[in-house]
């Protein structure tokens, strides 16, 4: 009798434990998790204009600032002399004529493609070994800190860039193969001497949502995540970059840029006007013509009576516009695979660098952004990402292998806005999966577990990232 009961119960247990009945407990949707910023600072849409929408709550003045800033952002600047005297002063050397060329629809620029000599969205930083007076990159003699590949009539551009890609293949633990493309850049037609021993760093323009919110994150909240000597032994050692603030004339925490080399949004914008478009601003008043670029230096400028080419009013408008682009609401947040991916993101420790949950502080430049709880998915700190991703060009405290954690909010909408999904500092990753596989250095601690996941789980993680 006992043996029969035992066998019967064993049999029923075995049937009861068949695959059809046994399921994992699904992670639960958390109410409101689709908001990465307060609702009035967010936008809910999935069309190509989603990065260009303003936050709510403007008064009339702010309406005017935002609207005019948007127009200026999309304006193609013209060389001097021109009858449109308020919109001239382009160059004489430049990378793009309009902000929107590299940040099309306030989105992400494209890398240079094989065989092309140019790209809408790409530029190359330069320097020579050593540091300037403030500890920053030392400009390359004759060229400065960036290669301007375009110029106005009768002025020589600095040079041209081309790229070739070689494939790196790899294999997941489950046997699936993958392939990454490694770029190899060549600078040619150098007009002011050879750049063969220059330190270079290829960069693409990033999406511009939520920048005011980032600007408004109090320094302390960022420094709280610093762990330079990995005292908690999790393999992650984020460091702060301290960079030159041209206005306060002191070293301040760097937050903006691929290596966190700009201390605040105003300087980021002014730096872009100067380096990328050759336009002087109230912050950077000198035309960007390093000696011996005489034609550049002697070309007419767009300054009217000593006022910078971008007037204070124009700068204020573009700057305000850049503070006020709304953060897209996440999509597909209740999908099973997105929920599973969300938990995997924490399990394999992506969250260690791609951090969430800040509260913005006082922000005079745009008070609508104050006291907001936000989740940009970045700690804004420098991390060693390994030799394969290294640019080998130090930038203040950032070493040649370090990069600032890229905020992931909006990353899933690049396809809708910019019709591409090129990621990482120079767009070498063709999609999220490749971007993960490029993670090295400190990030091996997350990449390796990723490679060990089943395909279903890898896809779930990618689906989560694309929901951001």
């Amino acid at each position: 009798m006992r043996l029969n009961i035992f066998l019967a119960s064993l049999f029923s247990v075995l049937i009861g434990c068949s695959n059809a009945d046994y399921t994992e407990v699904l992670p639960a949707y958390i109410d409101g998790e689709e908001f990465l910023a307060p609702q009035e600072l967010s936008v809910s849409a999935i069309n190509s204009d989603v990065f260009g929408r303003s936050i709510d709550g403007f008064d009339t003045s702010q309406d005017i600032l935002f609207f005019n800033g948007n127009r200026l952002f999309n304006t193609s600047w013209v060389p001097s002399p021109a009858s449109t005297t308020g919109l001239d002063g382009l160059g004489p050397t430049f990378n793009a004529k309009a902000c929107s060329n590299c940040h099309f629809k306030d989105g992400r620029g494209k890398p240079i493609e094989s065989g092309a000599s140019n790209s809408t969205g790409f530029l190359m930083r330069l320097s020579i070994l050593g540091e300037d007076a403030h500890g920053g990159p030392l400009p390359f003699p004759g060229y400065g800190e960036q290669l301007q590949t375009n110029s106005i009539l009768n002025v020589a551009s600095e040079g041209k860039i081309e790229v070739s890609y070689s494939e790196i293949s790899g294999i997941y633990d489950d046997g699936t193969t993958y392939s990454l493309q490694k770029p190899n850049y060549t600078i040619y037609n150098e007009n002011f001497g050879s750049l063969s021993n220059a330190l270079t760093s290829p960069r693409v323009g990033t999406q511009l949502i939520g920048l005011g919110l980032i600007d408004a994150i109090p320094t302390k909240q960022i420094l709280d995540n610093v762990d330079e000597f990995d005292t908690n032994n999790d393999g992650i050692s984020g460091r702060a970059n301290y960079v030159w603030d041209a206005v306060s004339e002191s070293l301040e925490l760097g937050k903006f840029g691929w290596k966190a080399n700009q201390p605040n949004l105003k300087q980021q914008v002014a730096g872009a006007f100067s380096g990328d478009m050759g336009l002087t601003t109230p912050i950077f008043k000198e035309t960007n013509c390093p000696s011996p670029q005489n034609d550049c230096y002697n070309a007419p400028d767009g300054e009217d009576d000593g006022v910078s080419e971008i007037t204070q009013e124009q700068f204020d408008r573009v700057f305000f516009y850049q503070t006020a682009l709304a953060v897209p609401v996440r999509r597909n947040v209740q999908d099973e695979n997105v929920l599973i991916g969300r938990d995997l993101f924490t399990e394999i420790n992506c969250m260690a660098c791609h951090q969430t949950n800040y509260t913005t502080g006082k922000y005079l430049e745009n008070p609508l952004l104050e006291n907001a709880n936000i989740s940009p998915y970045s700690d804004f700190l420098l991390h060693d990402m390994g030799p394969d991703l290294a640019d080998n060009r130090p930038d203040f405290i950032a070493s040649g292998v370090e990069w600032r954690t890229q905020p992931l909010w909006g990353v899933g909408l690049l396809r809708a806005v910019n019709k591409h999904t090129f990621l990482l500092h120079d767009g070498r990753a063709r999609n999220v999966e490749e971007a993960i596989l490029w993670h090295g250095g400190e990030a091996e601690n997350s990449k390796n577990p990723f490679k060990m996941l089943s395909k279903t789980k890898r896809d779930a993680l990618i689906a989560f990232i694309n929901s951001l």
Partner: protein
Amino acid sequence: MNQQNPSWLEARDYYGQTEVFRGSNGPVDFEGDETWAIANEGQLNAWPLNEAYIDYVSVKNGYTGQGGIYDNSIIAGTDAITKETLGNKNEDGGNDEKAISTGWHAIEFLLWGQDETNPADKIPGQRPYTDYVIPMEKKNVAAVNNHARRGTYLKVVTELLVDDLKDLVDTWAEGGAYRDVFLALDENEALKNIILGPHFLASEELSFERMLASATSDVGIDNSGQEDEHSCFSDNTHRDVYMNAKGILNVLFGEYEDGGIDTGASVYELVKQVDPVQAAKLKTAIDAAWAAIVVVDNTSKSGTPYDLMIVNESEQNPGIVLAGHYALKTLGDVITESAQKFDIGLE
């Protein structure tokens, strides 16, 4: 020059009313691959434009300063002036949205020339006829050259404009490609498209781009914002604004005036059937916006050209242009509300 100008002005009054069909998934600007998507709005009416792309510009410091002529233009060049080349040059292959070589404002520039005078002088551009014809008594004409090419350019670019307009007329006419597509649309989708046009003008293009921007701009001589009026060479912007607003009324009230007044089914009547209170609100908003625009048109006709209006106005010193902007913006919001009564979201 006086012969051609009235024709341009008269034709613009008709064109202005058609701009209400922009932004409504229609043939003039739809960006899809469909064969009926002519998408020639940029070739027809792009603005602002970089005058130096088309023809010589005089570059002065201020209104009265001396200056030189700068000429690195298409007219000064050697490219053949044909409809095809001018069309291809428009926007420089998509690289420069101000490199405009075709359309209404290119023609306007060729007829009037730059408006370099102080708006308080109340005159538009003053291009001399000698830009086109060397007078018998003058053998040495000063800096301006290329008379023949300029004349050819004007002729060719006008022919191109007529071709582009005809393409749109034909596609909407009986038997036209888009007419068939439109009539076959699901009713709600067609209704949405109909409402999108007035919404686009009231919330965006007319209210912001053509009115707010011009009143709060700082472009041009003396950073006064004079450059920024839509028809800056002819100072005809009051008519652009008036006729754009008329287009909004045409669609919302189902009317068209050309000699007599044609009437038909209207958005307003439809809203009234569904929600009379909302319809009353809509009519109030339309009437208020129209009244504000009429003030702008009348003020210009009685001697204050548009560029003088906008130069005097600013955020700190709002006037009738900004008032028009606000009235239109409010109308845009009420249109969105009204569309919601049909469960149509305009985003």
